[in-house]
Structures are given as structure tokens and as C-alpha cells.
């Protein structure tokens, strides 16, 4: 059932008129990919609040998660002012305390991760078809266990934050669009996909709902069509966002 239209807000706006700002229907938390979801919410008349900061900030390892009895929001320095505005608007010490459902794009942004992972020539096992297995040159195959350990190490804080949010309210983590931008760099693309799948598996293992729009829209191992991707080559269009939100609605992800 389509929810009643409430309009959409972002945190800057709520900061400016916090007294009368209505409570959002959903919090969109994470990297730049939440913008398409925000646009998707607008299209469906869902009031959403974004807590958005570039993926590089999420990757800096500065995420702070407080103890479960500490009534204080988890904290990403780049989002500090936005989080405080929302705390004030909601009248809560912790923005996740009133049960507003959360859609998160956190922990992925795997370009930088893939660059580090592959900087010495590593390719996640099993290798892509484009890479000759018998004579792969200087390629170093990285086992699934190694990839797993690498992700555990580099995403520990992201996972801790997701566990924290999941303990407080309904949380769905959404995978980023599998955009065609880096497809020609097949080793890089392959490692991005392997890291993304590994992160998704770990989030799923934590008992957190995870949603992969790519598989649903175009099938496993396929790339999103260009018409659903912005000119920058890796962010989803408003149409993509609307389709993703539609699916999230049907999964009940936006119900408190």
C-alpha cells in the first residue's frame, strides 16, 4: 500500500525550521547513493531524511558507535551537524531511538577498497573469465578467506554501526547500483563485485535485511543499463531510485 504523501526533507531544511518539521517516515543513511533513494521517496510521496556523506568519509574509519546504554547517536564526523539537527528535531539523544525505519547504503563504496585490494595485483578467487587462469602473468589470486579477512578488517566499524542501528530499529541495507562505468577495467570491476558480495554476505550473516536491486532489476552478474545511471557513471538516476523504493516498499522495509 502506498503511504500517505508527506513531502521530503533533508537535514539542512529541518535545521532551519526544526520547530515545525514533521517526523520523517524513513531515514536514509550512508554514502552518495542515498540521493537516488531520496528522490525515489519523493516520487512515492514518502517523507525521508537523508544523512548523507561521501563514501570517502565513511571509509576513513572514523565512525564511532557508542555502548547500547548510551543515549547518543552513532557519529560520523562529516555528518555531525546533520545528526545534531535531527536529534533536536526528533527530541532524542539518539536518532535511532524512535523506531523510524532506516535504509542504509553503508559499508560498500568499494572502489577504494578494490583499489587497495588489487594494488599489488590481487584478483579475488574465482577469477573473471577474461583473465587466463593458466598464464595470468603477475596476477596474485586472493583466496576467499583472504578477501573475507580483508573485509572484516576494513569494514569492522561499518558493521558495528549497522549492528547498532539494527538493534534499535528496522534496518535494510541496500547495495549500490552495479553501474557500467568500470566494466572495461575487468580486474577492478571483478574485485569490486567480489568485495561487494562479501560485505553483503557478512551483513546478511549479522541478521540484517539486505536488498540487492541489481539482481532484481537486471539479474545476477549483469550491469544496470546506462539509462538508470547518472552521467557520472556510477550513481543511480531518480528513476532507478523510484524503482528501488517501490521494491523496498513491497518488502515492507519502510514499515516501522
Amino acid at each position: 500500500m502506498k503511504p500517505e504523501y508527506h513531502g521530503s526533507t533533508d537535514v539542512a531544511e529541518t535545521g532551519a525550521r526544526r520547530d515545525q518539521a514533521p517526523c520523517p517516515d524513513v531515514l536514509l543513511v550512508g554514502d552518495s547513493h542515498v540521493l537516488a533513494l531520496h528522490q525515489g521517496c519523493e516520487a512515492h510521496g514518502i517523507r525521508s531524511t537523508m544523512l548523507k556523506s561521501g563514501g570517502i568519509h565513511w571509509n576513513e574509519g572514523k565512525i564511532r558507535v557508542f555502548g547500547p546504554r548510551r543515549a547518543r547517536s552513532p557519529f560520523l564526523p562529516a555528518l555531525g551537524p546533520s545528526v545534531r539537527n535531527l536529534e533536536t528535531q526528533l527530541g532524542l539523544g539518539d536518532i535511532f531511538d524512535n523506531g523510524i525505519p532506516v535504509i542504509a547504503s553503508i559499508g560498500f563504496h568499494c572502489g577504494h577498497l578494490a583499489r587497495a585490494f588489487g594494488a599489488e595485483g590481487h584478483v579475488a578467487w574465482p577469477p573473471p573469465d577474461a583473465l587466463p587462469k593458466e598464464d595470468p602473468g603477475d596476477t596474485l589470486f586472493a583466496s576467499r578467506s583472504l578477501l573475507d579477512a580483508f573485509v572484516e578488517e576494513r569494514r569492522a566499524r561499518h558493521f558495528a554501526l549497522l549492528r547498532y542501528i539494527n538493534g534499535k530499529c528496522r534496518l535494510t541495507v541496500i547495495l549500490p547500483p552495479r553501474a557500467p562505468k568500470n566494466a572495461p577495467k575487468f580486474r577492478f570491476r571483478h574485485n569490486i563485485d567480489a568485495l561487494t558480495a562479501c560485505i553483503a554476505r557478512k551483513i546478511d550473516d549479522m541478521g540484517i535485511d539486505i536488498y540487492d536491486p541489481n539482481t532484481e532489476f537486471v539479474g545476477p552478474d549483469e550491469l544496470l543499463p546506462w539509462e538508470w545511471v547518472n552521467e557520472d557513471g556510477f550513481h543511480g538516476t531518480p528513476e532507478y531510485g523510484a524503482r528501488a523504493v517501490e521494491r523496498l516498499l513491497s518488502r515492507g522495509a519502510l514499515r516501522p
Partner: protein
Amino acid sequence: MSSKSPYSDLEPHAFWRTAVADAGVFGMGGLWKSGWTLPADAAFATYGSCFAQHISRALTARDLNWLNCEPGPDGMAPETARNFNYGVFSARTGNIYTARLFLHWVRLAAGYEAPKDQEIWHETGNGGPGRFRPALFPTIEPDGFGDADEARAAIAGAARAFHRSVRDADVFIFTLGLTEGWLNRETMAPYALCPGTIAGEFDADLHVFENAGYPAIRADLEAALSIMRDLNPQLRILFTVSPVPLTATASGHHVLPATTYSKSTLRAVAGDLAAAMDHVDYFPSYEIIAGTPARAAFFAPNLRSVEMPGVSLVMSHFFAGLDLRSPAGKRKRNRPADTGDIEASLAQEDLICEEESLEASNET
């Protein structure tokens, strides 16, 4: 007829009293002097028994050019990387204790052995598909591998990295560890460790013990050196013998004389090869730690593990004897071919992220 004896004009280092007894273990000098004048950026490859791990660490700590031809992923914590045996030896071979296993790795690196033919142990349990461990290095990853293909890919990767290290090294340092080892009776392929000890299952019909003697060890090492020099005709090989005693012996003898047999045989072969070939040398790490001047002081209370002061002393003699006076060759580090494209792509994404950060600041 001369009144002088051949000992009359010898240097003080030739006499036990002046060179050892009076000098004491920390005062001994000139224990080793390399006959090779190497470039300042000489590349070193290191392999062998567990004691060889100290050499790579010391070379790295001195900012010398230690070849790491199979590094872990960039930015991985050193302890995690070491857990997966990255950064321990120049390729991820794990410990190579015997001359037979050393030759096997050289043959793999040169393509005389195929990764697909290497034995893989399958561990079953808990109803799952189980884990797969290569018999050549069963503990190279803490939990083994997900399937046999992945395990063989790890062997192939290590073999290619071993090849690169031989090709690119100026000096290949190999630390000999043991004479005792285990072979597959059917293929005569060596095992890294006795099946059934840490991994695998022991089969008395299939697994055969070998305590290699001087002739066999020398033949294996000569074969290995010959192949390596085919890959890199300029390669120099520096042997050392690990001072770490045997944990256990399967020879039937007491472990103390078994250790003496093992170490003295390896020492004799290494010394003779060094005497016979200009491109081979021997460095006396065994003597520094296990010799009488040290009075076993460098061993831990288990009288087996070598404590760090001993390692430091060994390495100080090593660096004191090294001659790096030739001009550096200005070596370049190779990065994957697609590095530039990836950097450009990420720079574009970062620019967008930076713009978002400005936008976030504007919201305050």
C-alpha cells in the same frame, strides 16, 4: 728450510684464543665477509626454514631491497597478512625445511612440475564441503581453501612469485633447516611436514620417511642451483643453516645426536658448495647461535627457540660482512598495468565526494 710454521703469520681471527675465547661472543669480528661487491640497491630473496623469517625482517628494517614477490593486499594489517603468510618469504611458500622440498619449489617455479599435479588434502567434517589444504604448504592459510582449484591456484601463484624472485634477485638467501622429511611413496614428492601432525592424515603405506644424507642433499641443492642459474645467470646464492634444533626425530636416534647429524650434514654441504662455486657463499648463523661462545645463551628456556638478542647478533654480523659498494641500478617497482586507469576513475569519484562534503558543510 724455513723456521716459520704455517701458523706463524696467520691473522688473530685464525686462533681460537684471540678470535673467540678472549673476544667473547659479542666481541667476535670478521666472522663473515662477503666476496661479492653488490649494488647499493641489491635485491635479496629469502626462503628456507623458520629461522629465515628473521632475515627478511632484518633486511626490511634496514630499508634494504628485500624482494616481496607475493605481497598481501595493500593496507592489510601486518598481523593479518602474516596470518596468511604474506611478507614472510619472498614468495608465499611457507617454511622450506629440506633440500628436497627446496628443489621441488624450484622445479615448480621453472615449470618442471605442474601445480595441477600437486597433492591436496581434503578435510571433511561438520557435514559441509570441508576444507582443502595443499600438501606443499598445508598451513599457508589459517583455514585452508574452499576447494581444490583454489588450493592449486595458491600453489601456482606462489610458484610464479618464486620464479619472479629468482629472476629479479641479486642474492638468493636460503636457510637450510632439516635433513629429515617425508615423501609420498608413489610420486616421491616431498611434504612440507609429516602428514597427520598439523594437517592431513598419516598413511604408513603411502608416507615414507627420509633422513637425507650428504650426497642426496648436495645433489638436490646442485640441481636447484643449476635451474635457478638458468633462470637468472647472474644469481648468487647464500646458504645459511638454521640453529634451531629438531622438534622431534623419526630417525630412531635420540633427538640430540639426530640434531647434530642434521645440522652438521647441512653445514658440510653448504660449506662445500660455497667452496666449489664462486656464485655460492655460506653465512655462519648456525655457529653464532649454537657455537660454544654463546653457551646456549641465545636459546629460550626450551633450548630450541632463538631469542631476539641472538637474532640481532646474527644479523649484525650479516650486515657487517655485506659489501654494497657498487652503484645502485635504479630499480623500478612494477605495479599492475591498470593502476593508472583505476586511479583516474577514483579521482573522479572522489571529486564528487568532495563536492558532497562541501554541501554537507553548507548545511551547518
